[in-house]
């Protein structure tokens, strides 16, 4: 793991080949790697911006694309209040621009690899990005691993990758999808309205053929604390629950 990361974590220049508006607050940026690397679903890259006076700003972004894709990776970036890097991406960056990144990074929040134990994914907002990489990988690899995703978003329009997730739910028989909308009524019988709690997590995990062997949770710190405790309440060992958090 260490050697694989060390060998590939050099800074490289990448061209933005396309930009897609995903939700009112989130855009996807498709970047062509000049030095292509292999990566595992769940990993991230560091992005570096440099001002004319030499000032640099660095941020980490999870990779949304599946590792089996081409030399192009997808980053889905949410506009944050006063975010000096996210506002650059939303207001300035366009196809044809070049930015610097290094990766793949992160050796913990990783798709577990061949296993027949179901995987439980719980995300909020843009926290679905590394989970989406896992679902896309699950689809592309054909690994017979049942997956459940419980995704919290403010509204139906804020559900990142919504249409693709709905399509994957139809095409993958062992994908369970449940959307939790915090500011709107549920749109579908299998969805929820309100903030994630123990009951919701238990309900979604219960739709898997057998209990999950591990869980991945990504979102704000407050969200992750609730979701990780709910995963513990299912009987998962703490070591089988991997989390990524942002915010205080």
């Amino acid at each position, binding site marked *: *793991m*260490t050697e694989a*990361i*060390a060998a590939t*974590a050099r800074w490289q*220049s990448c061209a933005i080949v396309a930009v897609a508006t995903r939700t009112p607050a989130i855009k996807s940026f498709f970047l062509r790697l000049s030095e292509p690397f292999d990566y595992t679903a769940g990993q991230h890259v*560091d992005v*570096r*911006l*440099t*001002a*004319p*006076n030499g*000032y*640099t*700003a*660095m*941020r*980490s972004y999870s990779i949304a694309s599946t590792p089996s894709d081409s030399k192009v990776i997808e980053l889905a970036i949410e506009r944050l209040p006063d975010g*000096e890097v996210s506002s*650059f991406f939303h207001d*300035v*960056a366009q196809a044809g*621009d*070049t*930015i*610097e990144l*290094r990766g793949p*990074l*992160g*050796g*913990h*929040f990783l798709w577990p690899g061949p296993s027949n134990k179901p995987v439980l994914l719980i995300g909020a907002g843009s926290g679905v990005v590394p989970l989406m990489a896992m679902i896309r990988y699950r689809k592309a690899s054909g690994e017979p691993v049942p997956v459940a995703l419980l995704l919290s978003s403010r509204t139906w329009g804020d559900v990142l990758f919504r249409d693709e997730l709905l399509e994957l739910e139809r095409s993958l028989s062992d994908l369970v999808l449940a959307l939790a909308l915090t500011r709107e009524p549920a749109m579908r019988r299998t969805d929820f309205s309100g903030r994630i709690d123990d009951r919701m997590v238990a309900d979604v995990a219960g739709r898997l053929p057998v209990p999950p062997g591990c869980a991945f949770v990504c979102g704000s*710190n407050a969200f*992750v*604390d609730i979701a*990780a*405790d709910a*995963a*513990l309440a299912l009987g998962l060992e*703490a*070591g089988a*629950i*991997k*989390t990524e*958090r*942002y*915010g*205080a």
Partner: protein
Amino acid sequence: MVTRGFTGRQYGSEPSDRIPPGQHLVDNFPVLTAGPTPRIEPADWTFTLKVGPRPVKAWSWSEFNALPRTKMTRDIHCVTSWSKLNTAWEGVAVDDILADACLGAPTPFALAHCYDGYSTNVPLADLAMGKAMVALKYEGQPLPRDHGGPARLLVPHLYFWKSAKWVNGLQFTERDEAGFWELRGYHMYGDPWNEQRYTND
């Protein structure tokens, strides 16, 4: 390489000589944890000092709280690129833990161990001489659970993953043995001023 159209935040009067390269200031205190947040009651808490596999001394919560107290106000730097200035901590200096166990300089390296199975390696030279403590309070209050309460290691001059949360022991080792993140691609030492983020930085 200059990024087209990027000018960056203007820091104005802020002390840029206190912000390491690639870092940006935050006012809040972000939480990063690789798993569920542990619940450790002080009544169940113990701290164990080991040299190699051998336990040398263990303290209960009340015994540990009776050790001499140290206060530090320091800037802290997270490898995910945020820095926070003037954070105020209170706890027990590693020097005082060693003194209470009648240990001088047992070995050149140490691993901090934690209730959640986390570990991280720090050289003795970065723990001793007043450089590090086991922190029990943040900004005058008991350390919040999200930030490692009841106790965390504080090694403020290294990237903050070295300041292990929910710490329950220090193990002195002959060699520099990689901890949790160091085994997963992060730098063995982690000096923010030299941007030692990942293994070969």
